[in-house]
């Protein structure tokens, strides 16, 4: 009899998890579709979009820049160490450039912005939910999806590729600085090699990835904040969930995007 009840509890917990997963996927998808549809339908809130562009884009620049600078530097050292095993030290500039633009710029930048922006969006919307500000918007004939969610989705999707582009430049510069000071590269040769080997596709593919990551970041922040539980604990949980889910979705979608953009 006890065995039967253990089996029952076990299968029930599997069932509950599957149901929860289906429910979350469903509600997240319908939230995304609704949010996205409001991006394209008037009324638009240009002042709100601009404010979010500043908050999400401009003020994330230091974080993304720092991440890119140090990653570029470390990348140069590692590729040099790896390359020297088969006398191919000269690949450093081109691999740093490709690695930064295709992969590390958008992904690490995305993860850093996820930490910064998803959390702040979730905390802001969560607090608005708890203090009835979202309800107040509705009673003032303003659709919260349109006023709160759509501008954040749009701003993040526009800002992330631009951030990634600047991240690419700063990251390559990080590699360059390490290359010429620590690895005895000639500055002119380093720049020329980078320039010769880098293709436009490397940069644009990274920017496409970044746009998707930007959407995910704002999406998860908005979704978690909008559906936040009650009280300080509810907002805290929404913030954590936003950062964790955005980060995992960024890494997962990065793989899918890489498969799609660079089929083997």
């Amino acid at each position: 009899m006890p065995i039967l009840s253990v089996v029952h509890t076990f299968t029930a917990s599997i069932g509950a998890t599957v149901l929860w997963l289906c429910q979350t996927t469903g509600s997240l998808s319908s939230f995304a579709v609704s949010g996205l549809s409001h991006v394209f339908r008037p009324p638009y809130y240009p002042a709100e979009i601009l404010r979010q562009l500043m908050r999400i884009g401009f003020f994330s620049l230091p974080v993304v820049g720092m991440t890119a600078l140090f990653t570029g530097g470390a990348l140069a050292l590692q590729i040099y160490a790896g390359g020297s095993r088969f006398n191919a030290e000269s690949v450093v500039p081109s691999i740093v450039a490709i690695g930064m633009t295709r992969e590390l710029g958008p992904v690490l930048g995305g993860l850093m912005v996820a930490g910064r922006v998803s959390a702040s969006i979730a905390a802001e919307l969560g607090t608005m939910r708890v203090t009835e500000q979202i309800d107040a918007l509705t009673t003032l004939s303003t659709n919260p999806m349109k006023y709160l969610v759509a501008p954040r989705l749009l701003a993040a999707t526009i800002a992330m590729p631009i951030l990634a582009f600047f991240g690419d430049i700063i990251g390559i510069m990080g590699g360059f600085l390490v290359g010429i000071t620590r690895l005895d590269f000639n500055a002119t040769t380093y720049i020329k090699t980078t320039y010769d080997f880098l293709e436009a596709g490397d940069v644009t593919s990274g920017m496409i990835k970044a746009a998707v990551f930007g959407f995910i970041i704002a999406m998860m922040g908005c979704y978690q904040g909008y559906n936040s539980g009650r009280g300080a604990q509810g907002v805290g949980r929404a913030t954590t969930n936003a950062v964790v889910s955005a980060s995992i979705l960024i890494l997962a979608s990065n793989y899918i995007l890489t498969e799609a953009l660079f089929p083997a």
Partner: protein
Amino acid sequence: MTETAMTELPKIETPKIEMQNVRKSFGAKHVLRGVDLTINRSESMVIIGGSGTGKSVLLKCIIGLITPDTGDIFVDGENTAGKRGKERELLLDKFGMLFQGGALFDSLLVWENVAFRLLHGARKLPRGEARAIAIAKLRRVGLKEDSADLFPAELSGGMQKRVGLARAIAAEPEIIFFDEPTTGLDPIMADVINDLIREIVVEMGVTAMTITHDMTSVRKIADRVAMIHDGLIHWCGPVAEIDSTDNPYIHQFVNGLADGPIEAVR
């Protein structure tokens, strides 16, 4: 002249708000269990009841923040169910609401909060004009012009309530909801807010619906009182009768007794 009179006639007969057998459950918790309530034009209705008896849910059902499971809600004789988009916006334009905690937008200045509807809605005005109206409304609720350029967080609780009130009346609504207007205020400030609410309701001729458990508010604000308990309206009548009625629920609530049909956890 006669034409106007004729078109106005049936309007007088239609109640401003009518709820018929409204039910709402959250999971196994039955919050509203068949509420019937009528609020007439230009009447101030106060809903009383203990905490967690469904007062807020009732209010949110009417304004459409919560969808009832069954039952109908009519505003000006029109069923509110299934209204979406523009239709719903038109309906919401009739309402103003003062939230319990104020629910002011903390990223916006005080005047932008008050003028929110005038800055964004269908009746969008130029910023200067909207600001002038906002300042006039702030003055009406007893706030000086210099508070207009502060953020809500810089105001005291009583001032935030006043700003909330100014926002609720800014777009000249036909119906105003007050969600626990005096909760969290000291007795003097509570009285000031009660007076303000009464004055505004009379002056604007609006239909008002207040939920509260503060009996001082009830006596100041109400024309009629409805008592909700356990998701049902147990009594509804003129405010003058709350002391004389033999309804045990009203008797217990009005006199603040621990013993009676309403169970109190000790």
